[in-house]
């Protein structure tokens, strides 16, 4: 501290400790003032940063997949839709795919393409009636139940309903274990299922 400039009026006690002077008090007040301004600014910044974190319901809505007749009975077809929450510059990433299985009549199962293990796209093989995942080898039966491999559960399903001959599903966000963690039986054509993706 040899080359530091001492203030002319700085008061030091006998043991060299600096006592409170007007300038030091002003410096501390200035720091406190900056702290206050910072605190006032931090709140909107954090709210801006956390704005994508919303409840599942905010992101979900009913989306039409087309007339029921497009899905032949006893078959599983890949259907695509545009995500209800999207931005103008999303391009093709706004699109989402799902598998529609029509058992009979108005009985459907709509699966997410995302493997329940780590989200890779499972592929449907109609010959063996299996969904296979290319990433870590998860395999599912036609009804979405886990057949083998690392997944802890079956495929994620979307709730569906049929409105004037159109198949609708309740979708809007990427299905993961945190928003579809439980294997719940889905009520048909009600759309109030707590599990959807």
């Amino acid at each position, binding site marked *: 501290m040899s080359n530091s400039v001492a203030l002319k009026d700085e008061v030091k006690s006998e043991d060299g400790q600096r006592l409170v002077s007007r300038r030091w008090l002003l410096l501390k007040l200035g720091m406190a003032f900056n702290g206050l301004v910072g605190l006032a600014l931090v709140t909107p910044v954090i709210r801006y940063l956390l704005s994508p974190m919303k409840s599942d319901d905010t992101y979900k809505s009913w989306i039409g997949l087309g007339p029921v007749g497009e899905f032949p009975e006893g078959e599983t077809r890949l259907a695509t839709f545009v995500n209800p929450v999207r931005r103008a510059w*999303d391009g093709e990433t706004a699109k989402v795919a799902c598998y529609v299985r029509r058992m009979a009549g108005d009985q459907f199962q709509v699966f997410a393409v995302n493997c329940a293990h780590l989200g890779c796209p499972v592929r449907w093989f109609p010959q063996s009636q299996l969904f296979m995942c290319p990433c870590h080898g998860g395999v599912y039966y036609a009804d979405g139940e886990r057949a083998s491999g690392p997944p802890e559960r079956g495929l994620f399903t979307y709730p569906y309903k049929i409105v004037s001959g159109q198949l609708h599903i309740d979708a809007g966000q990427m299905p993961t274990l945190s928003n579809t963690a439980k294997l719940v039986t889905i009520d048909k054509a009600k759309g109030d299922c707590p599990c959807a993706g």
Partner: protein
Amino acid sequence: MRRLVAVYNWLEQRLQLEAPVKDAALHPVPRNTASWWYVFGSAAFTLLLLQVFTGILLALIYVPGGGQAWQSLNVLNHQVELGWFLRAMHGWGSNFMVAVVLIHMVQVFLFGSYKYPRELTWVLGVFLLLMTLGMAFTGQVLRFDQDAYWGLGIGASITSRIPFVGGRLVHLLLGGPIIAGATLSRFFALHVFVIPGMLLAFAGLHVWMVLKLGINEWPMPGRVVRRSTYLQDYRKLTHEDGVPFVPVALWKDIFFSGAIIAAVAICAFVLGPFGPSGQPDPTIIQTVPKPDFFFLWIYAALAYLPPAMETPFILVAPIVGIAVLLGLPFFAGEGEKSWHRRPVALLVLCTAAITWGVLTHLATFTPWSPHMDAWSGDPLPPQDLRQATPLVRQGAVIFQAKQCRNCHAIGGSGGQRGPALDTLATRMTEDQMIRQVLQGGGNMPAYGKNLSPPEVTALVSFLETLHPPGQPPATDASRKELQTSEIIAAPLPEKRP
């Protein structure tokens, strides 16, 4: 010349950089450290500068928008003059940087450099490694092709496993409910502003500490680090047997850095840029996503973990791993530096390296994944079927058509998820095969619902032919007894359920 000196003096009078630079350049370092083993740190820094430079050049063209990023990369690859080369330089530079940072870390670990008083240098180094890996991952995302898209899906799925807040964190990670433009924008901000800024600041501090604390001396067995004496010992070492850093040590750094940049350029020129692979259209599901080289080992580990262990392992292992790395200099801050006297350290290093190598190797051919196109793309060896009966041939058709081949190899081609079936008949009897096909088990799906009884008969009669010429198929001893017995003349009981 005199004018140059005048300009220099004019600048020096204002900048006053001569003294500190001279200080840094001419500070004495232990003679043994002027070694080729000490060149990796400076090479990593050089690569960081190369990445910043090539990154800025790419940013002149690249569009960080969900709808255009992939197209802009294709424009860079095919339409912008030498755009492909700059992309390749950045891609290969990234691989080299991760590799050199890892080698640097192994070297300082082996040399015990993290011990007193260089604990904080090591800690910053751990953060630098994490940030380098962060750059590699976010860089892969910016490629915004199918691998990037589904890689993000894996990242989101892992995040979702965090208890209580997982779902919300997925939203935060993706910038919304799905992987889309908002996701790319935030990864762009991370890759271009946040992480590089931190990397440069941390790397600067890291180098500052190397200058202030002195470079780690060459470890000698028996020269033990003690907090009370180390600083004096080191001072003695550098002042009695020291050499000035410039030029004695630096010339090797300079040559190695030059060689590394040349190697990046040669790789870039010969092997070209990485991707982009298919367009990031999530409705194209005919894709087999794969992470970049330095994340392959995680990909393999995730395939081999038992389901029940997976979530705890994914969430706890990284924290423990990082904590161990950060804590290392604090529980091993003193003692021997030489690897001759640190068998545990050496063993840990070898174990980690072998594990990493094996997992990475496995991930290059993913034996755990079904081969999605094997059933239609890999023909059966024709010699197996030349003499076959119609029933066996029908079985072979069913074997292919029901995607059995996706998991089971025959004649060296097909999936490796299940066992290869070339010698199946020698280890399973007919009844066992029927049971396995119908009920599945042992990580095989049950085919009971998807095969009619005649199809099972045909399939199993084909499987029965899978044995080497000189080796008879396995038979059920009791069945044989029944067949040869004269007492029982009735036909065999129906095999199928």
